[in-house]
């Protein structure tokens, strides 16, 4: 009996070491996202809409992660996300449909392109701050949208561009949706880990310093030029990669989906969840996109009147910003704290009851 107890303590220590590893939560999130897919693979009849909802959510999480580096750490608000995601989708569509290029090569091309675009926008942002930056990026996004509509040879205009099939190495293959879903999940896990590393590293700290006070940051040796460019490039790379994944998973891209509404939704997701916590971003994205797609669309009331879900989202955003400006993740944190306090009090009372004065 004693022997077994001791050994289990050893095992417990090992498990707690795994449990407290900073990446453990991300693996759990990825697994939760994969559950529906795994059920479908195992033969259960799960509606495609639900499956798509999880796919969308994961792609939007990746985009929101990049946005949080820009907003939560760099302190710069951009409304150009939609345009960048759109570029990602059309790059995939153009190169696979017309040049039959390998998807891996396309990803490399998009990353290089994103670095260039991000550098240009970052360079513009050096002289502009706050609201004006948001307006300028919004203008940029609208310009891109017009380009998507009118460059018909590449984007097929307002009819939308559909993907013929993904080229892995040589031939066009109709890759199974299930495998793409799993690949997206793995990429999301990778992105989460990378973002956490970046946030906890000296670069993340330098970005935070810049956000708090530019002059103080400069006095501490932080180059504003370098870090603004870095923040913009990082977020652009994330957005374009999100676009690539969107095109490979959904297979269809239309200019009207890359409008201001999309950028605003990403902004809302980051703010509702909490701009400086990865769990917060996951939560916020799920609230803004996933909840609507996966849960509300299954309820008949919301299916009949799609406008209600928009109202619901708006109310949610107002409530969060009024009562929890730090994001929903703060709310959860404070609830956890309260529960901890209550259990401690209860334990104290119980102990006093057991070891206290005997009523006899």
């Amino acid at each position, binding site marked *: 009996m004693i022997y077994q107890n001791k050994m289990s303590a050893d095992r417990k220590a090992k498990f707690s070491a795994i449990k407290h590893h900073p990446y453990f939560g991300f693996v759990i999130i990825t697994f939760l996202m994969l559950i529906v897919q795994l059920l479908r693979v195992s033969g259960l009849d799960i509606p495609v809409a639900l499956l798509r909802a999880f796919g969308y959510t994961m792609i939007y999480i990746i985009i929101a992660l990049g946005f949080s580096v820009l907003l939560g750490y760099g302190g710069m608000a951009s409304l150009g996300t939609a345009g960048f995601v759109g570029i990602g989708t059309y790059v995939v569509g153009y190169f696979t449909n017309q040049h039959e290029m390998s998807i891996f090569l396309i990803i490399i091309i998009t990353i290089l392109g994103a670095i260039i675009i991000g550098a240009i926008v970052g360079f513009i942002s050096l002289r502009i701050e706050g609201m004006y930056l948001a307006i300028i990026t919004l203008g940029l996004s609208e310009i891109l949208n017009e380009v998507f509509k009118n460059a018909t040879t590449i984007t097929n205009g307002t009819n939308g561009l559909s993907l013929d099939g993904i080229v892995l190495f040589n031939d066009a293959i109709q890759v199974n949706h299930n495998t793409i879903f799993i690949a997206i999940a793995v990429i999301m896990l990778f992105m989460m880990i990378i973002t956490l590393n970046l946030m906890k*590293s000296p*670069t993340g700290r330098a970005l935070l310093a810049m956000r*708090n006070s530019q002059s103080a940051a400069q006095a*501490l040796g932080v180059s504003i030029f370098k870090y603004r460019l870095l923040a913009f490039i990082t977020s652009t790379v994330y957005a374009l990669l999100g676009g690539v994944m969107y095109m490979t998973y959904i297979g269809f891209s239309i200019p009207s989906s890359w409008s201001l509404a999309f950028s605003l939704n990403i902004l809302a997701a980051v703010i509702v969840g909490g701009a400086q916590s990865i769990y917060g971003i996951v939560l916020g994205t799920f609230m803004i996109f996933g909840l609507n797609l996966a849960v509300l669309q299954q309820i008949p009331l919301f299916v009949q009147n799609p406008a209600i879900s928009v109202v619901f989202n708006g109310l949610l955003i107002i409530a969060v910003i009024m009562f929890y400006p730090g994001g929903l993740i703060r709310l959860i944190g404070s609830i956890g704290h309260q529960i901890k306090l209550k259990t401690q009090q209860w334990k104290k009372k119980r102990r006093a009851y057991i070891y206290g004065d005997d009523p006899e």
Partner: protein
Amino acid sequence: MATILNKVKLWYLEKRLTSHEIKLDFNKNYLPIKKKEIDEKYNNKCVMMNLKMKNDLLSYDISLGIKSEFLAQEFETENKHIEHKYHWKKRALVQTLKRKNISAGEELGKLENEKNDLLEEIKSKFYPKSLDETEKEGLEVKYQEIKNSYLEKKNLSTNNYSTKLEKFVSKTDEVIKNYETKIVAIKKQLQTLEVKVDNGILEDGELLRLDHLSMNFGGLKAVDDLSFSVKEGEIFGLIGPNGAGKTTVFNCITRFYKPTFGEMHFKNKLNDITDLNGIVVHNIIKEGIARTFQNVEMIWELNILENLLVAGHTEYRSGFFGHLFNSRLLRQEEVVMKMKAQKILEDLDLFQYAYQYPMGLPYGTLKKIELARTLMVNPNLIILDEPAAGLNDAETEALVKTIRKIRDDYKTTIFLVEHDMTLVMEICDTVCAISFGKKLAIGTPKEIQSSKVVREAYLGGE
């Protein structure tokens, strides 16, 4: 042509020298930390092994009747456990019986009997009856075998540990020696190369010198033809009435403003004379000038230790991709920098705040933390912009002590702007008084106090 080539070579060699010195410093700092880590690992392993051995030998211990401490402890805990359990049961029983108005005698007796039975059972488990001679011998042989195997394992691991430690120490020693020899060689080369740098600008013992500094904002002359010099190792105070242009001078030195006219020369970390006019704002800290601000500029989302680490930002060698993938170099550097920050916090009696967030801390403490932050880069010159602003008398006194301590322990020069005359007169070695951007007087605090011009500037003339 030859001079240009020489200059390029000089620049290259200096760059290499600094990088080598940083690497040497890093290795020297990392050695004791890594040693400690290896030690800790070994100790933990030993403890675990002992525990496992005890667990494996426990059943033999019991049957052979060996009374080890471990066993006694286990026995006691088991006993306690049962006592508690029955205490609970008894209380519950008494209460229910009271409610039903039944006398408790019989039921309680039953409970007592149960408890005693259990206790005896456990006693028999821990202290069983004696065995036959043959059985005992067999058990003893097995017992010894297990014990010996564990001892062998332990010996092996100790050998491993010592070889590992030796390997690591010898390796890092080699690296350190390598860098030292490299540095010596580069220094020799530099000596032969050294084109006479204009040392004439700074006199002996001077650290910073301003010549005819002027700064105009439109038609307003904030600083007008100001020149003075700061000596090494002193506390230099700049005073003046409101709007005299003290902060403008600071901002010129730290390159937040570009002076309209005038030269500034500074002896940097490498004992080179640099022209401050040619340096960008964010590189000023690399030359060895660290500053604080009038209102504290903290990073509110980070705790105090991380706030210090931000100041050490320029000392990291790992790049962006290293940060993305949490590279080994970054992890090592973080450990070294954290140790450095902890040491500074301990020196200034701030260690209790290390893991707190700056929001809600008292203003005086925040000022002190800002001071600590400047020390992260081993600066030559610390510039304090009104360190006593907003502090009460007790806090100001503490500040005087810490400023002196920093000057003595970290061997830096301190240059401060202040309104609090008692602080300035108490602490400064040299004081420079300015008014409307012009120099009035420079000298020891006593000389300034007795100066007529200064009095007029503060209190007004007749």
